[in-house]
């Protein structure tokens, strides 16, 4: 159940495939649910051309590790993977990868979704966006079930 904070750009789908090939027992998992969050070039009505992701080193790792442990305790999972970017990002850069492997799909889906919601509400990351009008801190994340 690796949890990593990445200071450099990463290729989430490539890493997911590689991790699965190297670390998951072949034939044991029937399901993998995965989510990748990426930087959009538009937010709150404005063009965004860069972003900085700050975090609370020491606390973030604990929160992320705990939320993967909770997922493993609550669902019948074979493994999970969680990568999160920090530092200076450009539009289209991946921000987060969350993946869960299980025998059957219900566990993987539920765990992936729950990990993302807990990460969004608890993990100590903060986004600062660069727009034409200057820099601004993102005030809050979109809620889980009405984020349109």
């Amino acid at each position, binding site marked *: 159940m690796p949890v990593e904070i990445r200071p450099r750009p990463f290729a989430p789908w490539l890493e997911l495939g590689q991790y699965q090939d190297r670390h998951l027992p072949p034939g044991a998992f029937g399901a993998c649910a995965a989510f990748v969050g990426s930087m959009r070039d538009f937010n709150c009505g404005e063009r965004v051309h860069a972003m900085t992701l*700050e*975090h*609370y080193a020491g*606390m973030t790792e604990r929160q992320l590790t705990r939320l993967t442990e909770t997922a493993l305790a609550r669902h019948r999972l074979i493994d999970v993977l969680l990568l*999160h970017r920090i530092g200076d990002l450009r539009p289209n850069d991946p*921000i987060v990868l969350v993946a869960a492997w299980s025998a059957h799909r219900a566990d993987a889906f539920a765990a992936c979704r729950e990990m993302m919601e807990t990460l969004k509400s608890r993990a*100590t*990351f*903060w986004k600062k966006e660069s727009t034409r009008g200057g820099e601004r801190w993102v005030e809050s994340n979109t809620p889980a079930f009405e984020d349109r």
Partner: protein
Amino acid sequence: MTVHIKCFASLRQQLGVDAVRLEHRREMTVADAWRALSAQPPPGNLLCARNFEYVDFDQTIADGDEIAFFPPVTGG
């Protein structure tokens, strides 16, 4: 006793405080630590952690603790 205080994100920029060491004679709560940091009342959405765990403002602080103040998180 010694308390290490950290601030993050917009709060760090507003207060102009990144990390600060506080010396205090008596037992104190997280709310006391905030008052030592700023004359303003804490923002309604302010979050705080004691030794890397979310806590309420009435938590008592022990010698050597790390207390952090920050706005709502926006990762993911």
